[in-house]
């Protein structure tokens, strides 16, 4: 089974870039020709382009919850996102919408399974910076473990 793991985020926007950090760590842990690990600074249509043709896609990203939640790592499927996931800007559509659109147009290369490993963060920075907060950095190992489990599950 061909699997793609995509760490998503902006590497110069502090905690928002946590997905990129996790992907970088994973590259050290996972050496399997059927597993591709990518870093992406993008969402929506471009993210869809990236995952087309794989059987399974694991997306790692920062997640901000409306309710106050403790920082943790959680597994989601796309159905968990009521409004859509990830258009990083007002000039794109979300991944959920992009997939919906692709299906409608007869795209056959959409992965069978798409999983999101979400790292819940307090706030999304509006100040530039390359460092993760201590809290978020402490969640990276957990996220790495969960992705590795997810890969194993796929056989």
């Amino acid at each position, binding site marked *: 089974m061909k699997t793609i793991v995509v760490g998503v985020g902006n590497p*110069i926007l502090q905690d928002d870039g946590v997905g990129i950090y996790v992907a970088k760590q994973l590259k050290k842990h996972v050496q399997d020709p059927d597993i591709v690990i990518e870093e992406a600074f993008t969402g929506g249509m471009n993210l869809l382009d990236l995952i087309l043709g794989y059987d399974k896609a694991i997306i790692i990203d920062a997640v901000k*919850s409306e309710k106050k939640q403790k920082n943790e790592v959680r597994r*989601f499927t796309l159905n968990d996102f009521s409004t*859509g996931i990830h258009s990083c800007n007002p000039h794109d559509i*979300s991944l959920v919408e992009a997939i919906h659109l692709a299906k409608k147009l*007869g795209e056959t290369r959409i992965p069978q399974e798409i999983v999101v490993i979400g790292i819940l963060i307090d706030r999304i920075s509006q100040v*530039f910076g390359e460092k993760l907060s201590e809290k978020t950095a402490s969640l990276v190992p957990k996220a790495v473990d969960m992705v590795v489990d997810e890969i194993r599950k796929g056989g």
Partner: protein
Amino acid sequence: MKTVVIDPITRLEGHGKISIFLNNQGNVENAYLQIPELRGFERFCQGRRAEDMPQITSRICGVCPVAHHFASTKALDDAFNVDPPSAAKKLRELMYCGYIIYDHILHFYYLGGPDFVVGPDAPPDKRNILGVIEKAGIEIGKDVIRHRAYGQRITAILGGKATHPVCGLPGGVSKTLNREEVKEIEKMIKSCVEFAKFSLKLFDDVVLKNKDYVDLILSDPYTLKTYNMGLVDENNKVNFYDGKIRVTDPEGKEYIKFDVKDYYKNIAEHVEEWSYIKFPYLKSIGWKGFKDGKDSGIYRVGPLGRLNAAEGMATPLADKEYKRMYETLGGRPVNSTLAFHWARLIELLYVSERAMELIKDPEITSQHVRNPVGEPDEGFGVVEASRGTLIHHYKLTKDGLIEKANLIVATTNNAGAINMSVKNAAKGLIKNGKINDGLLNMVEMAFRAYDPCFACATHTLPGGMPMEINIYDHEKKLYKTLKQNM
């Protein structure tokens, strides 16, 4: 099953938050669009190696990485006192055309177009790309996807990497084109020219043949008589990659034309306490508040701003379309905000034609794509991002590190005008305390025409932008809140 309620995963917090203040008759006194602004960029850059700037700045915002990449690369050419070989300039411009192709297609078909193609009165869950496909047909949907992907592919071939390019270097580019790549690009561009023509025809059939739409385009709430700004070539034709910054007045006459290095002599920024974003204006005229007209220094950029600030397009088919737009809408300048959509399609045709000229140029496969750099000092770079004029300005230390960095981004240039357009749209729909049902929709159409890329997320399933309008009475007490897609 457990339902998890989650805010859309956002890159950046915030959304188009609008505050409308009514007077004691219940009519609109003021309206403000609050745009969250990223902070600390200058400090973030200080002490970094200058040649990293094209990569760093293309991460500022996911919307126009290519525009930042080349504004930055051009500022570095200037800062390192080097003029790139002409083949390098052509490769950069060709890649730039690819970027405008995918960006403009995305905006027209996914974001702005649904208002027209599906209709301004359609419910928000239909006013999106899926609604467009329902109306226009699956085949057109496939064409949209295909040509947007062509634009992406062209930038990926030339830029060395999809979405975030890595090719720009002071004095040139790092990647040349081989014959197979030329063939592939030429084939895609040929198709893009046809698709651009088709898109203009679609605009004709769907929008211009519908009197209601034309009336809406020309209506007062969507009219703003400001100055216009854009890059032009030596013949005053629109240029995205290089040239002088030209400003025309609200009657269409040239007001000023300047080199980017003189931007701070001509543009100043006004600060409002309620917004992080600064409002640029023409220095020689001054800040006169949120007013249009000849006496106010507010100007517009972006597709309509560019077409108004120029005297035509440099390619034959686009130039014909340029003339047709002005003939149809009553001459240059056109001050109708919704005409931004039309202007965007004319530009789509221009960049497709221009890309064809460039790919056929024998020099495009040249191996001489970089010149050696000189001593570092100060540099300015300007390009036309798809949503308007973008300026990068760096001061370097003698070791080639960033000492100071200042950027004027496209949406900031339009900030004053967007605010006024929102107010005008609100004015038409709030009368004596009565709020018309179409308010959210019409306000959204007003600012979406500019294709703003403020630091906010839109999780557009289904339909438009997440938006919140708070309306306050004359005692500044909250009177009503309207929400959409939140």
